[in-house]
Every structure is written in structure tokens, then in C-alpha cells.
């Protein structure tokens, strides 16, 4: 019995220490002796959990790492859990060597100080479009490079436009007239996402910006005018009022099933549209307020960044980022992911190979990063603007009142 008591104590002690240890495991990294010249393993973290994106990304990472005598440990978690997971890594100092960040989140992560300035790591940026470099910048420092970017364009159903004798709209006036003419029976002329959160907000941003508005001056006349035009389309019955509950995927479903003749959406919907039998679609840049205005759409994209570690790892990771952004790697990604290469030559090559990408490539050249004018305030702007759009569409307030409330929310 004595031995069994003692064994019991030993067991209990073991149980306690296992419990305690479990809390501290999963570490890694830390100060290591210089690895210069040796083969090392770099860790890469993204949210490409779907196939084939996960494997193709993994292959590109491995190819690029091989050039600097490294291998890649590639891990992905789904986007909804991604940011909390990255923050956890930041606080436990277990950052990967290569970290992908969705561009609206860059200011938040760059502000932590955990990311390295890529220009200090000698990454060559000459061949990038200026608008693309802007996406990776926070307070004038370049923290991330997006091999590929995307934006929003106008998709239209060619058959329906031809039947109604409507030209592809290029101005707001034409868009309104086309939406009215295309609204027939239980079919709406036009649709967009106005759901709570980023999807609903950034779909409206091209209208705000093309009209000269700013995310930080939501109660300015330009913004009120843009929101009035945008929401009147719903109030006049050319856009379903259900859009307040529709994500961009829902908007795509409506368009693909023929319940809407036009929509604002991104090029990532192209595979689904191509898979829809009997759908003859086209795309164009988003209509502008007056003929001759420049469309300014928000740029989205996934940025590859280099979190701080030791000099050797940072240098090799920076090379991998540069390599991911090389012309052929970008074109490869673009052709499989329906995104736009950030390299000019690769973008031109893409249009040659996939003509349906022309409108999106054109949009990208004049686009502006989604959080370009609001920076760290983007999250406040996002929530306030989303509520304002929904308030007007659902008849709670007029554009002026809703945007004044939104502006007060952002400033307060």
C-alpha cells in the first residue's frame, strides 16, 4: 500500500507537470547560432486552405526557397481564424519567417512593429505598379508585396443587355438607365453586396472614390452624392433591398441564376461564372460619375511580409518574397487564381492569354489600396459606413443623416 501511495504521488506529479507543460509547448524559434550558408527550413503561413490554391502556393514557395538553399514548412488556417492566430503568434514571439496578410489588415499588423521594412532588406521594387506598392505600405514604409492583386468590376449578362437593347454603361447616368431598363418581372437590373462588414463596404468604395470622396470625410457632399446614387438604385427597385443581407457570393449567385442582369463583383467569381451553363457574361470597369472621369476602385490582395527574426533568415525570406513576385511566378498565380499580376509585363501577358481579365487589369492600374486613406481607422470606417449603407437602403435614414452619423462614429 505504501508503494501504491507513492506511485499515486508520482502519477499526480506527472499529471501536473504535463498539464503545465502543455501550456508552454509549441514554441520554437528563439536565438540560434548563425545559420549562414547552411540549408535551413523557413516557415510560411497563409490562409490558402482550399485546393488547389494550397498546393500551388506551397510549390511556388518551395521553388523560391530552393534558390536560397532553404526548404519550406507551409501551413494554412481558414481566414476567419487567421488574424487571431497571427496575433497569438505575435504575442508568443513564434512568428513564421514568411507571413501572408490580407491588405486591409496590414496597417494593424505593421503598427505592431513585428514586420520588417522590405526596402531595408534590399528587395527590388522597380518593376511594380505604383498602385500595387501603395497596398504594401504603411506610413511610407514597404512592409509587404502582393504578387497578385484584385479589385472590383462591373459584370453584365450579355444576353439580357442585347435583349433590352442596352449598351454597357460607363457613367452613373447610363448605369441608372440600364438598371431601370433591365429590371423586368422578378429580375432586377443590377445587384451588389451591402452585407454587414467589409464585403458590403468595399463594394461601395469605387462609387465614393470615383466621385472624389474620402473615407475620412463621410459627410462631405461628394460622399453623400455617391451614397444617394448608390442607394437610390435599391430604393427605386432596380436593386433588391435584400442586398443588405447579401455577401459578394450571394450577389454572384443572383447574377449567375439570372435574377440580376448586372453586378459589382471581383474576378475571383469568374470560375463560378464560367461554370454556369448558358450564362454569357462580360465585364467592364465600374461606371464613373461623368464621362471622362477616372474610375478609382479599391485594391485588394494578399501581401507577403517578413516578420522580424535574425539577419540570415530575414535575408533569405526577403529573397523568397522577391521571387514570389517575379514575373513568371505572378503570371502562374494569376492564371490559376483569377487575380492580376502586380508586375506590368506579367499583367499584359495575362490579358493576352485571358482576354476576359482585361477590364480588371485596367481597373487595377488606376486603383487605390482599400485602406489607403483611412489607414488604422479603416475598421471604424468599415463598421460605420456599412451601417450607413444599410440604414439608407432599408429606409431608416436618408444618405445625409446616415453619413453624418457615420462620420460622428468614426471621429468619436
Amino acid at each position: 500500500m505504501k508503494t501504491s501511495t507513492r506511485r499515486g504521488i508520482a502519477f499526480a506529479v506527472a499529471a501536473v507537470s504535463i498539464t503545465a507543460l502543455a501550456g508552454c509547448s509549441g514554441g520554437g524559434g528563439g536565438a540560434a547560432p548563425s545559420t549562414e550558408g547552411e540549408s535551413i527550413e523557413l516557415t510560411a503561413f497563409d490562409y490558402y486552405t482550399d485546393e488547389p490554391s494550397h498546393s500551388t502556393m506551397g510549390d511556388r514557395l518551395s521553388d523560391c526557397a530552393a534558390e536560397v538553399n532553404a526548404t519550406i514548412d507551409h501551413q494554412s488556417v481558414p481566414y476567419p481564424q487567421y488574424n487571431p492566430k497571427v496575433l497569438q503568434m505575435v504575442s508568443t514571439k513564434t512568428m513564421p519567417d514568411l507571413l501572408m496578410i490580407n491588405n486591409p489588415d496590414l496597417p494593424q499588423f505593421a503598427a505592431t512593429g513585428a514586420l520588417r521594412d522590405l526596402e531595408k532588406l534590399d528587395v527590388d521594387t522597380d518593376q511594380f505598379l505604383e498602385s500595387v506598392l501603395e497596398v504594401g505600405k504603411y506610413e511610407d514604409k514597404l512592409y509587404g508585396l502582393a504578387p497578385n492583386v484584385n479589385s472590383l468590376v462591373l459584370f453584365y449578362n450579355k444576353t439580357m443587355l442585347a435583349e433590352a437593347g442596352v449598351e454597357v454603361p460607363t457613367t452613373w447616368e447610363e448605369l441608372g438607365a440600364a438598371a431601370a431598363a433591365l429590371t423586368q418581372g422578378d429580375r432586377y437590373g443590377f445587384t451588389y453586396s451591402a452585407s454587414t462588414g467589409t464585403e458590403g463596404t468595399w463594394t461601395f468604395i469605387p462609387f465614393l472614390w470615383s466621385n472624389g470622396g474620402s473615407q475620412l470625410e463621410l459627410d462631405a457632399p461628394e460622399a453623400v452624392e455617391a451614397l444617394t446614387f448608390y442607394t437610390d438604385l435599391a430604393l427605386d427597385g432596380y436593386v433588391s433591398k435584400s442586398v443588405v443581407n447579401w455577401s459578394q457570393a450571394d450577389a454572384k449567385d443572383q447574377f449567375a441564376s439570372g435574377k440580376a442582369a448586372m453586378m459589382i463583383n471581383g474576378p475571383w467569381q469568374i470560375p463560378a461564372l464560367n461554370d454556369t451553363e448558358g450564362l454569357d457574361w462580360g465585364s467592364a470597369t465600374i461606371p464613373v460619375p461623368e464621362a471622362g472621369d477616372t474610375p478609382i476602385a479599391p485594391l485588394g490582395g494578399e501581401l507577403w511580409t517578413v516578420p522580424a527574426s535574425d539577419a540570415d533568415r530575414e535575408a533569405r525570406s526577403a529573397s523568397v518574397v522577391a521571387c514570389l513576385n517575379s514575373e513568371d511566378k505572378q503570371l502562374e498565380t494569376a492564371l490559376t487564381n483569377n487575380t492580376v499580376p502586380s508586375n506590368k509585363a506579367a499583367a499584359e501577358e495575362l490579358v493576352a492569354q485571358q482576354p476576359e481579365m482585361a477590364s480588371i487589369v485596367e481597373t487595377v492600374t488606376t486603383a487605390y489600396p482599400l485602406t489607403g486613406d483611412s489607414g488604422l481607422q479603416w475598421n471604424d470606417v468599415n463598421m460605420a459606413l456599412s451601417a450607413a449603407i444599410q440604414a439608407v437602403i432599408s429606409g431608416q435614414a436618408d444618405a445625409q443623416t446616415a453619413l453624418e452619423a457615420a462620420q460622428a462614429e468614426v471621429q468619436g
Partner: protein
Amino acid sequence: MDADVAVASGATGAGGDSDTKAAAHAASGRAVRRRQQLATLLFIAPAIVFVAIFFAVPVVNNIIMSFQEFTTATFYTGEAPWVGLQNYIDVVLDPLFARLTWNTGIFTFASLTVTFFIGLGLALFFDKTFRLSGLLRSLLLLPWLLPLVISAAVWRRMMDEGSGIINQILRAIGLNGVPWLTSPDVALASVVIVNIWIGIPFVMVILYGGLQEIPREFYEAAALDGATGWRAFWFITWPLLRPVVVVVLTLGFIYTIRALDIVLALTGGGPANATQTYATEAYQLSFIGFDFGHGAALSNILIIVSLVVAGLQLRVGRRPNDLAG
């Protein structure tokens, strides 16, 4: 072998049967008892460590966080400036706070009340065994078995204003479609309806269990005295069921007030904040807006409100049952 005897006498706390052996046994008995106490402690320790790590630390952290300006930079630098009550003041003075309070109150009260009465009705119905009652009872558990995100996604489709099946049925019988999730005036009611559907099985199962506990003899005796039907319910069932009712209402309240997934999956808090509650706003502040200080302050307000109301509920229902007096 010797030690075994010592343990045995030590454990029973007896002095031993012989005076000469008693002193020696007492000494080793104390040592053994100490060792046993140590063993007991070490066996409890994993549970204490578990509770400390997974409950105490997060709660304390959340309270501390609510007094700090806690942003994404804090994760890297570890610096979170102390701001005292400022986070609470900001959250309460926010123009949205009154709306959140109203939404949270209506959502919780309406969901819980209707769920309770329907659940009670079904429990009484199934208390009388009839053909297929077991099968029907299990079928009613379905909403509980389905993952919430899936049932919410299905409801979202059914409640779509244009193509949802509910509106198609309404139109087929000549009524107007209802903008279930797209009108700020209706959205909260729609979310409550779905929440009621989800909550009924929980209430029914627990109340049904409570009904099974009531001895049948009471009803027989009451029937002899002429008390059946409504009178039997009012004077026998209800008083004896009350302790279970208190548990159902308290747990139901806690589950409902903190409901997050169902609102996020149905409306995301919209349209225009019409379905935003304490729980969804706290989630959005923390995990969408990365504003952890304000998010923590709001979730602490939620915790305090639930603690106070749950405490009151338990206090009101303290009597074991009404028949006991």
C-alpha cells in the same frame, strides 16, 4: 507489510488495539496521514491547474484588459497603457449602446419567454405516453443536434425576401412577402424566431425530465378529490416542477443573452445594427476591429448583467418547491 497495518490504523483514526504498539503507530500514522494528504492534494492539483488556466486566467485577463488601451501593437510590445474606466465610459456613451441594450433585452426576453411556454406545452404533451410519442420526441430534438451554423444558414435561405420559401408560401396564399432579414423593423423578430426554434428542445427535454419525477400517486389522489386537468396542473404539476423551471430559466437566460453565432450567421448584426447585441458588438470590437480594450469592457458588462440577473433568478427560486412550503 508493517506499513500496511500502519496505514490501515492511521486511516481509520483508531488508536490500535494494544497500548504498547499505540505510541509507535501514532508516530508513523501521522507521517502516513501527511503523505496521504499530500497525495490527495496532488490528485486535486490537475483540476485546480485546469480551472486556473482555462477559467481564472482568462477572466482575470479580460478584466485587466478592459482597463487598458489594448491594441494589436500590445501583442508585440506587451505595452498596454492603463486607461482606468475610460473603455467603459466610451462603450456606454457610444450612440450605439442604447440600441445594443434594447436589442439584447428584447432578444433575450422574447426568446426565453416564448421558448419556455412552447417547451412546457410540448413537455406536458409528451408526458402522456401515446403511440409513436418516443419517436416524435426524438425528432423534436433535431434543432439541437444540428450544428448551429448550418441551421442558421438554412434559415437565412428560407427567410430570403425574394426567393425564400417562407415568402413564396405567403405569396401563394395571397399574402405579402415579409422582408424577414432585410428590414431593420423585422430582422430582430426573425432572429428571435430562429432562436426560439433552436431553444425549444433544450427546454422541453429538461421539463420533460422534471415531469417524470412527479409521482403518479399525487394525480391519483387528486383525481379522487376531483382535481383533474387544469387544477391538477396548477396545484400539483406546477409547484413540483418549479425547481426545474428555475434551472431551465436560469440556464436558458445565460445561453440566450450571450448568443453570438446565430446572430452572426443570420444577419451579422445588421441591417443597420438592428440585430446587434452586446455579444455580437463585443465580438466585432475585439476580433474585427482589433479594439480589444473596448471589446473586453463590453463583454464584462455582458458578464455582469448575466451574473446579476441569473443571481436574482436563483434567489427568487430558492424554495425547494411550493408544496414543501
